[in-house]
């Protein structure tokens, strides 16, 4: 059988490099013209007076939609390229032999860069604990990976700038490290399902170093396409809400309700727990919260609770964790998110 129609991949490499270069130039060009274009469209083409609510709302919308899409595509592309250098297997090797403490910090950071889907939580858990990585360190990884979400990061960066995006990453890290340390210090190995300890894990193959740049670019391009297809509608709705509310509602009208009252953080976190959505799905809600005057810590806590504690992942983890440990896991993560929410409300 030598006549199988196998498509050639390698011959396309140079064309792909050129395509990346071209996209970069186009990206920079597009980014530099969206603001003048949005102003022109709102104030000249539609002839709305500058400073009017409708004019500002339309200009805001026309500027933010392309801006967020550009930032989202650019960031997902770069993050995916970075992630092709990491694999769960490589992370497992890096974490092997690390103690509590330093291991938790490393696990949290690796949780950001390791490609991870919550459906992989179980094989990852088994592989990690079987190769001797402490339970608490494994949990730090399992918490950081979903809590620090690349789509949420790109959206926050696009909408609210690098300070908020940075705060989000730092708080996700702190939550994963602290929660992992707490779970680790309780020595709950007996709360893991018994069959896990009876399994044998031999090191898997790590292909992260063998990929060519063409492979990495193809994967990054595919990730961008996949994510944009999945989230575009949520993003437009979110920005639409932002544009509509922006300027219409007195910014502090609802601060009393969603702002810095002591119960606002636990309330939104408890509301968020049963919500299962991708990071983009919660984006419109978060924009509405912030525009309505919710304190930033409250809004961030809401978002982290939605992406960090998901029902499908919990159901999967139940296969390897006894109910007591599942309950503790959810409890510790929830509490950490609430405390981080308070912390930001105090310092911001």
């Amino acid at each position, binding site marked *: 059988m030598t006549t*199988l*129609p*196998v*498509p050639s991949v390698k011959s396309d490499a140079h064309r792909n490099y050129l395509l990346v270069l071209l996209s970069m130039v186009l990206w920079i060009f597009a980014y530099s013209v969206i603001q003048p274009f949005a102003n022109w469209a709102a104030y000249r083409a539609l002839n709305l007076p500058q400073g009017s609510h409708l004019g500002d709302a339309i200009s805001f919308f026309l500027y933010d939609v392309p801006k967020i899409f550009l930032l989202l595509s650019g960031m997902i592309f770069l993050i995916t390229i970075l992630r092709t250098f990491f694999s769960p297997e490589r992370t497992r090797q890096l974490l092997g032999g690390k103690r509590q403490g330093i291991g938790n910090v490393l696990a949290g950071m690796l949780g950001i860069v390791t490609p991870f889907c919550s*459906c992989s939580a*179980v*094989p990852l858990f088994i592989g990690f604990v079987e190769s001797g990585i402490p339970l608490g360190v494994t949990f730090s990884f399992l918490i950081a990976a979903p809590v620090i979400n690349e789509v949420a990061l790109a959206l926050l960066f696009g909408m609210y700038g690098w300070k908020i995006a940075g705060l989000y990453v730092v708080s996700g890290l702190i939550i994963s490290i602290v929660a992992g340390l707490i779970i680790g210090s309780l020595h709950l190995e007996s709360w893991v399902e018994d069959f896990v300890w009876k*399994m044998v894990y031999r090191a*898997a193959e790590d292909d992260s170093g063998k990929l060519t740049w063409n492979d990495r670019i193809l994967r990054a391009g595919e990730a961008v396409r996949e994510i944009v297809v999945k989230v575009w509608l949520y993003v437009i709705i979110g920005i639409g809400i932002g544009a509509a509310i922006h300027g219409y509602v007195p910014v502090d009208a609802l601060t009393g309700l969603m702002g810095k009252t002591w119960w606002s953080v636990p309330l939104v976190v408890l509301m968020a727990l049963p919500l299962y959505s991708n990071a983009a799905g919660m984006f419109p809600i978060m924009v509405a919260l912030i525009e309505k005057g919710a304190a930033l810590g409250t809004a961030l806590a809401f978002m982290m609770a939605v992406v960090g504690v998901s029902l499908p992942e919990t159901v*999967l983890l139940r296969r390897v964790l006894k109910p007591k440990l599942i309950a503790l896991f959810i409890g510790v993560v929830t509490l950490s998110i609430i405390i981080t929410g308070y912390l930001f409300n105090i310092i911001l």
Partner: protein
Amino acid sequence: MLTIKILGSGCENCKRLAYLAERARNHLGLEAQIVKVTEYPEIMKYNILSTPGLVINEKLVSAGRVPSESEIVTFLAEAVERA
């Protein structure tokens, strides 16, 4: 005949992988059986840390991502040559 195994608990990515594997098989006109492996003890025998995994004739060819249809075609063609 080839045996194609899809390793994974039945999440979205696993379903997409199964669908693409079926298309790749039909594209090549191969006779191949597609088996979904959903139990973790069985999945872990292939030493993977992340799902979905793609196994062709007991050889793990991809894990932790959904390869494109053309990649799967290449995997299948290689397996046919080995067989």
